[in-house]
């Protein structure tokens, strides 16, 4: 479904991603792990269109999207969530989600009719709020949500765009055990209909959810395959799992 | 079009460009490091000119007046920074724009109240004659002085920024402010000092250009816009960009104004040429800016990678 071929990016003298080649199959949960600074967020940025690539190709569902603008990729079904929460902070939960729904349903060059009259937008937004565990919190302003709720909304925004493939950048960042369980349950629910590329530090979650795992170290993929194989891979153990991997 | 005329205009462009650089350098550093838009920079240039004019009258000596005006303006600049501008660093750009715009209004009127709408700043008699540069080519001595001073200051600034510890701190701050802070650089006094240096540079430019351009209220605004164009072209936070940008703007503007009407006259009818020529010449630098931005939206040498 998604193919990365020799994707690279440098920032001045620093090589962030280096000749990354990997693929994500339809329907799988593919985890991307690696130490801090390995280039995972940069790679997500390149796939989603936030960042340009210096070299390489990104192919999504057969179409080369290497030079496509971010909003075009989203329209094609490729969405992302952010490691550092990026919401519409002064909007309510419902308005946040309704925006994402609005983006994929019809033109937003409508200048006269009040958007609040569009019941469909808000019904869908409510449904998504329920799915991510924020039922009853729809009218809360995003800024006032607890951290775990904000992370849920963070993922919810990406889901509201009806992606076929979603890139989740450390959705469980900063979460306690209960909140992490909720997030894992959410991911378990969505995996049936959405392919997931998951960047995570929480190894428990990774090994519970992932069909395949790729390991990124210093911008390069050093291993890619089934969880059991990765667990046993000598280079991975040395570079990553050997360290104290608690987030 | 004689070669001498071209050379003369190029020198004029160089002279103007170097003075622009003095303003642009201070402005781009404040911008790059403090991430602050300071519209009142032109007011410091104006203050420098008025102070120089006053001190020249008081001391009877051009050199003394100009040299005294520099620290005077620097001190005023630092006072301004510590009192008002400091509170703006953490604010959003809109607030900075509006607050410094308010300062322009205040400074313009304050100067008008204290000094009146303008002041005379005559060229020093010793330098008001021409100097022979080449056989058959004479160039005003005063303008040569400006070029000389501008070049020396540019060189000193380069040494300061590229070779000293303070300069290193400044460059570190320009390329990554948070990192510099995290590494223990004591930012507040560095900012104040930087501001003082910027104000001093403005004073040099204001005092030196005074005899040529007239010392009057509102003189800061026109040159401020050009300084902005320079920074946009050169890249925010970059001294090198400011220098390249200033020279580019100075030369393009001067040569454009001098030769474009003539050029137009060669191709178009006189009526069209005499209207279009000066019009296009006056906006040449803005067109230059637009072209640069089209290819490099962050300027030629942006400080942040």
């Amino acid at each position: 479904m998604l193919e990365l071929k020799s994707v690279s990016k440098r920032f001045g003298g620093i090589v962030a991603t280096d000749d990354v080649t990997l693929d994500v199959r339809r329907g799988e949960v593919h985890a991307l792990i690696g130490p801090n600074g390995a280039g995972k967020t940069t790679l997500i940025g390149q796939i989603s269109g936030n960042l340009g690539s210096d070299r390489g190709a990104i192919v999504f569902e057969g179409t080369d999207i290497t030079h496509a603008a971010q909003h075009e990729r989203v329209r094609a079904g490729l969405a992302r969530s952010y490691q550092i929460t990026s919401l519409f902070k002064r909007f309510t939960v419902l308005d946040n989600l309704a925006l994402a729904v609005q983006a994929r349903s019809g033109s937003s060059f409508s200048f006269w009719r009040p958007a609040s009259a569009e019941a469909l937008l808000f019904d869908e937004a409510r449904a998504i709020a329920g799915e991510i565990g924020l039922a009853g919190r729809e009218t809360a302003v995003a800024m006032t949500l607890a951290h775990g709720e904000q992370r849920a909304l963070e993922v919810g925004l990406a889901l509201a765009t009806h992606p076929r493939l979603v890139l989740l950048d450390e959705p469980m960042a900063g979460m306690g055990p209960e909140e992490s369980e909720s997030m894992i349950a959410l991911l378990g629910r969505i995996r049936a209909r959405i392919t997931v590329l998951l960047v995570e530090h929480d190894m428990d979650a990774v090994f519970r959810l992932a069909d395949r795992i790729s390991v990124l170290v210093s911008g390069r993929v050093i291993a890619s395959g089934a969880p059991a194989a990765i667990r046993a891979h000598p280079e991975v153990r040395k570079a990553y799992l050997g360290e104290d991997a608690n987030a | 079009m004689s070669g001498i005329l071209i050379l003369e205009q190029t020198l004029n462009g160089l002279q103007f460009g170097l003075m622009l650089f003095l303003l642009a350098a201070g402005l781009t550093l404040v911008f790059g490091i403090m991430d602050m838009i300071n519209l009142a920079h032109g007011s410091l240039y104006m203050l420098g000119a008025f102070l120089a004019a006053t001190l020249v009258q008081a001391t009877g000596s051009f050199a003394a007046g100009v040299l005294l005006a520099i620290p005077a303006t620097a001190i005023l600049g630092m006072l301004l920074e510590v009192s008002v501008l400091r509170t703006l660093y953490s604010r959003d750009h809109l607030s900075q724009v509006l607050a410094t715009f308010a300062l322009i209004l205040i400074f313009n009127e304050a100067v008008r109240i204290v000094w009146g709408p303008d002041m005379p700043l005559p060229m020093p008699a010793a330098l008001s004659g021409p100097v022979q540069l080449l056989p058959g080519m004479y160039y005003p001595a005063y303008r040569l002085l400006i070029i000389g001073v501008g070049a020396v200051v540019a060189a000193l600034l380069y040494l300061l920024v590229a070779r000293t510890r303070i300069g290193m701190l400044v460059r570190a701050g320009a390329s990554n402010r948070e990192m510099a802070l995290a590494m223990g650089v004591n930012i507040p006094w560095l900012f104040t000092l930087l501001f003082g240096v910027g104000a001093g540079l403005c004073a040099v430019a204001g005092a030196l250009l005074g005899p040529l351009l007239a010392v009057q209220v509102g003189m800061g605004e026109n040159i401020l816009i050009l300084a902005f164009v320079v920074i946009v072209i050169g890249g925010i936070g970059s001294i090198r960009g400011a220098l390249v940008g200033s020279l580019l703007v100075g030369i393009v503007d001067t040569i454009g104004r001098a030769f474009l009407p003539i050029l137009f006259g060669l191709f178009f009818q006189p009526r069209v040429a005499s209207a279009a020529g000066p019009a296009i010449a006056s906006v040449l630098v803005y067109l230059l800016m637009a072209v640069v931005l089209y290819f490099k939206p962050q300027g030629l040498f942006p400080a942040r990678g």
Partner: protein
Amino acid sequence: MRRAAPWVVLALALAFPLAMQAEHQTYYLSFASRIFVYALAATSLNLILGYGGMISFGHAAFVGTGAYVSSILLSEGVASAWIGWPAAIAASALAALAIGAVSLRTRGAYFIMITLAFAQMMFFLVNSMKAYGGDEGLSLRERASVGLGLDLGSDVAFYYTALAALAAGLYGLHRLAHSRFGRVIQAIRENEERAEAIGFPVYRHKLACFVIAGAAGGLAGALLASHGKYVNPNVLHWTHSGTLMVMVILGGVARLWGGVIGAAALLGLEDLIANHRVEWLAAMLPNYQQHASLGVGTVLLAIVLFAPQGIAGMFARRKHA
């Protein structure tokens, strides 16, 4: 109470000329008309600045383009406002499209300075148009004519025309702010990167917003030129852009009435200083009335430092906890 407020204001505005039977009628009607026109200009800026979060320091370019296009047409004998004003709107929209297309590719400080520079470019261009007055400006013999049995030369008629334009502009902004487009624009202001990340073509929306605001500014410019029967390049000067921004921040950024309140407050303040002598101030500084900008600057600085929400913000009910 809040819902009734706009209607009350409208009723007062409609009744105002009828109340002005005293000998100062002409002056105050003219002054009020000027406020309406500036309110429209400030409101158009509020759209991109307040609602859109785009700090454009070059809005005077669009107001000025409208003013000049309509003036040039008038001076060439095209008296009808039905041609002149739409032409002004179209010209300003075009200018906004051109300037916006280049400027909106930049961000932050660059954007502010570029809009400033482009506006100044327009100023210099217009300044060099000797055929239409150059730096001395262009005087018009008459105001534009709207037909319909109305003579805009009459201050009362012009007052109602300006009021109508302002009311239309405010209503348009109200609808726009609540429309799909308005939501996107405000979302872009809130978090531009995320707006793109959920699928909105941000650049296109910003550009459209810029053009709409430019067009409205152009109408304000056309009205301004007719009002004073005079236009000069200063209407395009960047300090004029600054004045418009001051009105917006004074009145309240992103609030529907921000432009109106700001224009009324600033123009009112200037009028007050110029025409109503305060003796104890005069004792300290004899000709203080010629230094009105000092007062305006101080007030502005105070507002930015201490009351950033503007006047409307101080009175708004807090919507969020």
